[in-house]
């Protein structure tokens, strides 16, 4: 089952501690070397990007929006997990590292199965027959 994992936090990361960086680096290396992680990317701050929104029935483009006190997504990773239990186990390890090495930080790792890769959108159950995908 393919999963995307994104880390969301309302606390901007001041900068991970060296201990956290090292621990995350090792975890990432393990996930790549074990064949579970197939893609990953960091997302630059929204100030470097843009919003294209529909508001009041009109399109509004905001270049480099400055958003306060909103949930920020720092990056994403894509995995091939055997099942949801494996996804959760890996994510727990990942977040435990934050607890261990950057106490006080709060955030959420969101795990989303990617549709069509053994996943049926309707019932969310892994479906073995690709005909349902």
């Amino acid at each position, binding site marked *: 089952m393919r999963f995307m994992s994104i880390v969301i936090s309302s606390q901007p990361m001041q900068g991970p501690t060296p201990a956290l960086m090292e621990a995350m680096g090792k975890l990432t290396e393990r996930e790549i070397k074990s*064949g579970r992680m197939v893609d990953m990317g960091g997302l630059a701050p929204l100030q470097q990007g843009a919003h294209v929104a529909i508001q009041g029935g009109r399109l509004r483009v905001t270049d480099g929006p400055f958003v306060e006190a909103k949930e920020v997504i720092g990056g994403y990773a894509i995995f091939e997990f055997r099942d949801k239990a494996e996804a959760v186990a890996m994510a727990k390890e990942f977040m435990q590292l934050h607890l261990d090495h950057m106490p006080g930080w709060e955030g959420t790792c969101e795990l989303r199965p990617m549709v069509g890769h053994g996943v049926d959108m309707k019932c969310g159950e892994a479906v073995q027959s690709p005909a349902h995908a």
Partner: protein
Amino acid sequence: MTAADIHAAILAAWRIEQPRLITSLSRMLRDVPLAEELAQDALVAALEDWPKSGVPDRPGAWLMATAKRRALDHLRRAKMLARKHGMLALDFEQEEQAMPDIDGSLDDDIGDEMLRLIFTACHPLLSRDAAAALALRMICGLTTEEIARAFLVPEATISQRIVRAKRTLSESGLAYETPRGEALSERLASVLEVVYLIFNEGYTASRGDDWMRPQLCQEALRLGRVLVSIAPMEAEAHGLLALMELNASRAAARIDADGEPILLLEQDRRRWDFLQIRRGLQALGRAQALGGEGGFYVLQAEIIACHARAETAEATNWRRVAGLYEKLSARVASPIIELNRAVAVSMAEGPEAGLAIIDRIAGEPALQTYHLLPGVRGDLLQKLGRHDEARAAFEAAAQLAGNRRDRSLMQRRAREVP
């Protein structure tokens, strides 16, 4: 959480930790099969303890500590503190004192350890079937039952295969070292064969078979990714990964709503997984950059890439495919490769040219029970308007077909001849 949820969570945590368990224990005990057993013991311990006490915050550390305790127990009990392990006696005491400190294991070179593990599991001393079972067990963490379901053999058969394989490894007194340089390249061939075996076993699965069978493709892909990350300079490793990714990319398009197989040329290409194709082509590119042009797996990946790159079946570069099969044939004399080349040649130059090749190989012993020989022949004869001969060929193919789906496909072809 239900009992089933907890069980799944324990298994998941153990599978993630398992390679490091085995590699650390192997280093302590200098015995991979024993290490594997103790890693299994740690799982059993977790299955007993965690439903009661809850899943620990650091499951990996818990498992590692448990496994190391068992390893030390074993060393004591087995009186292995003989001279040859005198070296260990000192570490042994230090280990005992340092037991609460588990973070040391984080300093392992994961790549090196995985390399050792995978090359041990796929040792040329073992039969490919035995190596496949051992690799799935030790690296992918599949249970004996899962492996048995995947290969459609009784659980006892797989159990025995694994036991015998471990005994062979123990008795052979394998030097506990990581192959490097030339030795690595030589040994790589057996590893690639095993991974490819696992992939093909899963790839030929169809709907209605146990779901573990398509899962095998995922395990093989995982093993392939492990290989390229720990042996990044090996072109054939990238080639095999490319081949597997490109083949797997068609999974969603390969069978219809009734579970019947759809031939590649008839598949709806919009259902091909383009991210996977891109990964496959990238792997192929790396293989070529490493000078792997004429390699066995690279050539096969190149052939599949021709299909992957074609937007429609009509856009397929058949001349290129035929040329690649020729190179493959030069490398490995195989009537099956020749048969595939005949198909490509027929698409590039017309059915007569393909038929000429078929007629040349028709007498090959290896092909006498291969249903695709009369199957391909029937297809070419039909295109040439030789309908009675075509029908007879398809009927012969149906007779030879090894499974229900292939048989019904050949029967359908026979019926559809005008």
